[in-house]
């Protein structure tokens, strides 16, 4: 018998008022896997992540974590279970320092030594953050804020990292830098569910890809197969 997937969504339904954003989504992320969740604007990608973190209520279906149903548990509980969420638009705490942002990422942890070690690990992964650790996060550039948001999520030592459009608004060079950092984390064995509009960049580092259209899956497969798929290329990858 194989171990249950780290995260499993069964028939997930999420509504915003009268609008159904996610309709019956089935999705699995296995341990160590990097799954890219792709699709156009409004396809329900961010909503799916927000439902996993209980930021929006789940109307139908189930969320299973390591085989145990956790649908509708508190957001704090999802963090405690090991789900890190790096939100859309970065959302760093602009009025606190880089170091404080990272320390707050470890809010639920009590192991001082482990926190200090992880802090150094984050600074090693993103040396620019180390240079700016005393600065207010609001004074960082967009790319640095994205690195801070990822590092802050890592400080909670997640088993699964949810990433919501980490390349949004970044210059191509920075997109490459962020994707390289994610690939390095994936190499170390971190599981990730990566929401991206930049499908090519995401599929280049992903194991599998899932394409959403109007809240349900229109296409899924290995990252290589999706990258080769001409139809996907035309409708989602654009020229990129």
């Amino acid at each position, binding site marked *: 018998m194989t171990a249950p997937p780290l995260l499993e969504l069964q028939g997930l339904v999420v509504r915003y008022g009268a609008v159904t954003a996610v309709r019956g989504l089935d999705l699995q992320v296995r341990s160590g896997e990097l799954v890219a969740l792709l699709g156009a604007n409004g396809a329900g990608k961010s909503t799916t992540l927000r439902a996993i973190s209980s930021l929006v209520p789940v109307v139908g279906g189930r969320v299973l974590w390591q085989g145990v149903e956790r649908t509708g548990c508190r*957001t704090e509980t999802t*963090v405690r279970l090991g789900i890190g969420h790096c*939100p859309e638009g970065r*959302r760093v*705490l602009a*009025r*606190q320092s880089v170091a404080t942002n990272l320390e*707050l990422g470890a*809010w639920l942890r009590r192991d001082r030594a482990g926190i200090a070690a992880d802090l150094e690990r984050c600074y090693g992964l993103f040396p620019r953050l180390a240079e700016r650790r005393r600065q207010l996060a609001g004074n960082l550039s967009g790319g640095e804020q994205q690195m801070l948001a990822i590092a802050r999520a890592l400080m*909670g030592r997640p088993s699964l990292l949810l990433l919501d459009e980490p390349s949004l608004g970044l210059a191509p060079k920075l997109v490459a830098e962020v994707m390289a950092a994610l690939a390095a984390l994936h190499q170390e064995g971190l599981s990730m569910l990566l929401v991206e509009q930049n499908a090519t960049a995401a599929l280049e580092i992903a194991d599998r890809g899932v394409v959403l259209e109007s809240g349900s899956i229109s296409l899924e497969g290995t990252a290589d197969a999706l990258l080769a798929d001409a139809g996907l290329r035309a409708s989602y990858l654009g020229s990129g």
Partner: protein
Amino acid sequence: MIEALLQTLLNGAASGGVYALVALGYTLVFSVLGVINFALGALFSLGGYLTYLLMGGRISANGGLPGWGLPQGLSFTPALLLAALLTGLVSLVVERLAFAPLRRRRAEPLLYLITSLGAGLVLVNLLQMLMGAEGYAFPATALAGLPDALQVAGARIRSVQVLLLAVCAAAVIVLTLWLERSRSGRALKAVAEDATTARLLGIDSGAMLRLAFLLSGALAGLGGGLIGVSISLPGPYMGISYGLKGLAVLVLGGLGSVPGAIAGGLLMGLAEALVPGDASGWRDALAFAILFLVLLLRPSGLLGRRQVEKV
């Protein structure tokens, strides 16, 4: 002449310090919840009366328990601190009864205004039932050990005002250090800045909100006790005027800004103190005229941020 000026400035700074405490009380809750807790003035009164009772003061003949008092009173400092703590706990009850039910229903902010105002009125009326409507003066021995006046730079000034200013300054410094340096203070700031992000970090925003209410009530209670001992307890409604003045200070300094609340409080207190004694009826008018003027020139307050943003 110098002596009079020094005393006037000190009086102003001392009452300004109390206004700043009230304004900080509003700021704490506002920064987390985005609404004004109108029960704060009543909590201010409560702090004054609790300090009086904890020091062994007796209830008057018109009160609910005529002649009742604690068998053994505390001295001023422990009584003041305990009263502040108890007021903070009552503030938690106010949160539970007047705020939490609305929060669960995601009610409109306007409704908090009504429920908190109602909670404040209930508190004031309970105080009136227990203590009667008339004023109380603290016993002359309340500050035994504190000399009546101090010599500063050749001038004699009333020491109770120095005490007031010192306690307010200490409270403000402790609060600021806590917000900037401590783990929980930073978490509270995180919730204030972006509640959703704070939740994603695992911070329990409900717990932080309760902490904000506790501290906010304690600050108001501290203010009430200080005014009680330095002036008197004119009646259960005493806190309402301080609550309103604190509200003016809050807007003056910039809604949600901690340094703004402190600067606004001092400015308001000093401006009032500079009104000559024989024109004291104009004090409140002057205070609100200043508020008007500042808002005309700087709509977001002295130290407020441009857009409406929270601490």
